[in-house]
């Protein structure tokens, strides 16, 4: 059991040494602060505190940024080591492939957690200080941080999956970019197109919300929106959220990391260094 911790320790050290941790945290802080200040206009009209508006803006940001950061960190995990030639030796040690993957996941998730807490936390603190914060908006902030980490976790496992399937680190990077584009951008565009074509029929009413929530990025969005009245109000996305049972989005988002890890584990098993 301590084997995956040994891997995690070494991976964490590597993330600190190659400044990935510092860079990711800085990116999160910069974007979160910029959005908080840029998005502070509608507070008066909507009658919610500034932290709520800030959380809403940061939710939109996190849908793009959390998967991106996660994929950036994970695409190299298997393909990079195989290319460097260090994977073969590692696999001859009495640590199972599952343990190796779990160790990397623990370290990478830890790094993402630090970046999210510092980034969203500092922006939240600034918003609360300058525009006030209620108990509900604080809960929304914590929910945002937690769900962002989970969303990042999903894309970490998907990154390991493409890293195990790809023949080289470069190919893995390309596949990771493709994954990001599909899950975060194209999926929603496709759904939007389908809804427009359907014109408010059975698809839009019944099937659409379920397909939408099956995508972890949309599940993340829906969970944050449905969870907080203020956030829903200021984001204007109440419709889709209200069509689904309350458990749908959390269930989807929480199941995805396990699904992704299982897929990555299966792909990693077939890698011959």
């Amino acid at each position, binding site marked *: 059991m*301590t*084997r995956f911790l*040994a*891997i995690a*320790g*070494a991976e964490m*050290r*590597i993330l600190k*040494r*190659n400044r990935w941790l510092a860079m990711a945290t800085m990116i999160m802080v910069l974007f979160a602060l910029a959005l908080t200040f840029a998005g502070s206009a509608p507070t008066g009209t909507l009658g919610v505190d500034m932290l709520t508006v800030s959380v809403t803006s940061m939710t939109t940001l996190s849908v793009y940024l959390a998967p991106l950061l996660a994929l950036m960190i994970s695409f190299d995990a298997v393909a990079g080591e195989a290319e*460097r*030639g*260090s994977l*073969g*030796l*590692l*696999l*001859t*040690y*009495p*640590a*199972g492939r599952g343990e190796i993957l779990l160790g990397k996941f623990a370290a990478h998730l830890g790094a993402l957690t630090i970046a999210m807490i510092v980034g969203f936390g500092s922006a939240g603190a600034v918003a609360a200080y300058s525009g006030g914060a209620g108990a509900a908006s604080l809960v929304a902030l914590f929910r945002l941080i937690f769900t962002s980490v989970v969303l990042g976790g999903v894309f970490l496992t998907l990154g390991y999956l493409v890293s195990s399937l790809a023949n080289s680190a470069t190919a893995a990077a390309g596949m990771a970019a493709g994954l990001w584009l599909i899950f975060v951008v194209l999926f929603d565009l496709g759904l939007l197109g389908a809804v427009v074509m359907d014109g408010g029929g059975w698809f839009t009413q019944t099937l659409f919300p379920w397909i939408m929530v099956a995508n972890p990025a949309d599940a993340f969005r829906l969970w944050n929106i449905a969870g907080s009245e203020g956030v829903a109000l200021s984001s204007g996305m109440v419709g889709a959220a209200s069509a689904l049972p309350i458990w749908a989005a959390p269930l989807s988002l929480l199941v995805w990391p396990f699904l992704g890890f299982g897929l990555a584990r299966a792909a990693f098993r077939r890698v*011959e*260094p």
Partner: protein
Amino acid sequence: MTDRVLDIQSLCKDRGKNRVLNDVSLAVQSGERVALLGHNGAGKSTLIKAVLGLITMDGGSVHIAGHTPGTAAARAATAFLPEAVSFHPALTGREQMALFARLAGQKPDITQLLERVGLGDALDLRIGTYSKGMRQRLGLAQVLLGRPKLALLDEPTSGLDPISRQDLYEIIDELAAEGCAVLIASHALTEMEARTDRIAIMRKGQLVANDTLQGLSARAGLRTRLRIRATENASAIALQTGGQRINGASVELEIDAADKMRTLRKITELGDSVSDIDITPPRLEDLYRYYAREDSQ
């Protein structure tokens, strides 16, 4: 049978339509050092990967101290030094060794271990700053972790200077003296000759030779070469010994190993007309060329 640490029986491996390992049987005993020779692509690395359990087999069996490759027990018993060993450049030598030690479930004295392979000064430097030879030494240090029963070394001396090579072979000798079975895949034939107990040669996925140097020489029927330097009359000596005059002062003749002593006695009888004599038994290079050749057997 019990001290057969590595026991390979009729191992086969296919890659697509190609059979890259064909009915390979090889055993290495405890304390034995075996050289595994062969051209690039002969199947040496594939054989090692099969023993490590990194690839699936398509026939035959491999046992390491009685365990199947890839199992936790087999991995714990095996140490591996890959060709052109590589580590993460951001870690220091000490950190990398600490990781391996924890993975192996060992608590060794890492400082002492790294001093033993000559990395005492580079303990806390990042591996990214190491030379190729230093990385190779670090790779060797991880082989020494936790007293392996079987050590698989793939081109261990590549990138090492002559002194480092000597050090490396001394460490290999120590390993073998402690009862470790050592299999060394290499192209450095002259080094292998002196430093191993037995020689296995692979060609196109098949094991074409597996014997001691003497046994291989006898089977190949390669002849020992004698070069006699004459004091004055080389032609006379050539006539008397049945050899070939190669220049004004020297005569060369090739003899079977069995005839060596008889021939030497005959030369001694020639007395003062012989000033010097060189005896060259068949070298591993000759044997390798013989066994690895396309049309042999």
